[in-house]
C-alpha cells in the first residue's frame, strides 16, 4: 500500500473500559432522577423547560410539514364542483348563524339590563386567538396537543382552548413559538361543569379514553338524563362560564354505589380539530380585586398557586 507509515500513531480505542461505564451510568441516572424529582416538585423548572422547548420547536414544525402538505395538496387538487358545493353549504351555514346573531344582540342587551336590575357583575366578552394544532403527543397514555402559538403571541399557561363545538382543554406549558395543551379526556384533567337545563353542578374528569369523561360525586337523586348538555360553570376561574363541554351519554344508578355513574362525551372534536381558538378572558373585576386585597393581607403568597394547581 502507498500509505506512508507514521512513526507514532494514536491507536483507535476498540474497547471501552467497563468500570468507567458503570460509574458514568450511575452518575447520569442519579442526575436524571434528581431532574425528575425537581420537575415534579417545583415550578421553577418550567423556565428551563420552556427554554428547551423553544430549542426543539423547529422539530415540531418540521414534523407538521407532511400533514400540511397533504392538506395543501387536497386543496389545490380539489374538484371545482366540490368546492362550489362546499361554498354553498358554508354560505347557508353563515346565514343560519347570522340569523342567530340577530337574536343575540337583543338577548345580550336584555341580559345586561336584567343583570343591572339584579345588581350583579356585568359579563365581559372573551377575546380569542386563532391557532393551529401542529403536534399530538405520541404517548397514547397522555392526551396532549401542541399548538403553534406561544408566549410571543401572549399565550399564558392556564388559558382555555376551544374548537367550533366546545371546550377542548387548557394550556399547561408554553415556549416562545408553541404551547402544549392538556385535553379534557386526559386522566389528569378535570373541569367544573353544570347541566345547561337546570344548573346542577358537577366536575367532569378525564378517563384517559378518547371521547369519554366521567362526572364525579353526582348524587343518585340528581336530575340528569341522557342527552343533557353540560356547559362550563365558570367556578374555579379557569374556564369561563357558558361554553359547551360535553353531552351526557349514559346514566347508571347502582344501588350499591353512593353516587350515580355518569359517562359523558366531549362536544369538541378532540382528535380531529386542527383550527382551534385560544381564549383570553378578562377576569370579572370586582371578584378579582377582592381576592387581591385578601391575598395582600395574607402572609403567604402561595394561595394563588395552589388554586391553580388544584384545577
Amino acid at each position, binding site marked *: 500500500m502507498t500509505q506512508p507509515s507514521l512513526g507514532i500513531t*494514536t491507536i*483507535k*480505542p*476498540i*474497547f*471501552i473500559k*467497563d468500570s468507567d*461505564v*458503570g460509574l*458514568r*451510568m450511575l452518575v*447520569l*441516572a442519579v*442526575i*436524571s*432522577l*434528581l*431532574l*425528575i424529582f*425537581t*420537575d*415534579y416538585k417545583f415550578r421553577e*423548572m418550567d423556565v*428551563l*423547560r420552556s427554554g*428547551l*422547548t423553544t*430549542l*426543539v420547536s423547529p*422539530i*415540531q414544525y*418540521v*414534523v*407538521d410539514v*407532511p*400533514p400540511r402538505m397533504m392538506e395543501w395538496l387536497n386543496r389545490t387538487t380539489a374538484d371545482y364542483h366540490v368546492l362550489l358545493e362546499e361554498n354553498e353549504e358554508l354560505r347557508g351555514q353563515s346565514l343560519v348563524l347570522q340569523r342567530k346573531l340577530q337574536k343575540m344582540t337583543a338577548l345580550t342587551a336584555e341580559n345586561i339590563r336584567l343583570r343591572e336590575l339584579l345588581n350583579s357583575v356585568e359579563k365581559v366578552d372573551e377575546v380569542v386567538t386563532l391557532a393551529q394544532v401542529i*403536534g*399530538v*403527543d*405520541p*404517548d*397514547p*397514555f*397522555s392526551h*396532549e396537543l*401542541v399548538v403553534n402559538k406561544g408566549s410571543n403571541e401572549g399565550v399564558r399557561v392556564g388559558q382555555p382552548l376551544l374548537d367550533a363545538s366546545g371546550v377542548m382543554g387548557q394550556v*399547561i*406549558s408554553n415556549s416562545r413559538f408553541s404551547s*402544549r395543551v392538556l385535553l379534557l379526556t386526559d*386522566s*389528569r384533567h378535570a373541569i367544573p361543569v353544570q347541566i345547561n337545563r337546570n344548573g346542577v353542578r358537577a366536575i367532569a374528569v378525564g378517563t*384517559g379514553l*378518547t371521547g369519554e369523561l366521567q362526572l364525579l360525586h353526582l348524587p343518585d337523586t340528581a336530575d340528569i338524563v341522557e342527552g343533557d348538555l353540560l356547559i362550563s360553570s365558570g367556578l374555579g376561574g379557569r374556564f369561563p362560564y357558558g361554553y359547551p363541554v360535553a353531552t351526557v351519554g349514559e346514566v347508571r344508578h347502582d344501588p350499591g354505589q353512593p353516587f350515580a355513574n355518569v359517562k359523558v362525551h366531549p362536544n369538541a372534536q378532540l*382528535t380531529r380539530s386542527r383550527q382551534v381558538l385560544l381564549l383570553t378572558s378578562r377576569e370579572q373585576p370586582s371578584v378579582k380585586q377582592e381576592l387581591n386585597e385578601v391575598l395582600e393581607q395574607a402572609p403567604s403568597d402561595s394561595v394563588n398557586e395552589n388554586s391553580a394547581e388544584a384545577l
Partner: protein
Amino acid sequence: MVGPSRANWVIYVSLLAALMLSALPLPEAMQWWRPEWVPLVLLYWIVALPTRVGLGTAWVLGILLDVLEGSLLGLNALALTVVAYVMLLVYQRVRMFSWLQQWLFVFALVALYQLIVHWVKGTFGTTSLSLMFLMPALVSAVLWPALFMLLRGVRRGFNVL
C-alpha cells in the same frame, strides 16, 4: 483525529430523524404500533461505534425527547441511559448474535426502556395498568433488522468509522 471518517453529522442527523419520527402524529388506531425510533437508532450506533456514541449521547437525547414529548424532565434520559448502559456492556456479543437472538435482545431492551418509563410515570402520576405499553417493543424488535441494514448502509456509504 481528523479525516473523512469522522463524519459526526451522519450520527446526529440519524438521531434527529429518530426524534422527528417519534413526534410524528399518527392516527388514533396506529398509536400503539409506533416503533420506539429513538432507542432503536441509539442502540444501533452503540453497537456500531461504542467509543463514540455512549451514555452522554443517550442522556442528551433523552432530555430532548422529554422536552419534545412534554414528559417529566429526565424520564426518557434515565431510561435511555440505562438501556445504553446494558448495550455497552454486551455490544461485542450482540455483534455476533444471529437475527433471532438480536430480535429477542432488542425486544428485551426496548421493553426495559418502556418499563422504566412506565414505572417513573406510575410513581409520579397516573398511567393505565394495561400491558399494551409493551406493544411498541414488539414492533421495534420486528423492525430492528431492516433498520440495522439501513443504518449500516448509511454508515458505510458515508464512511463513518
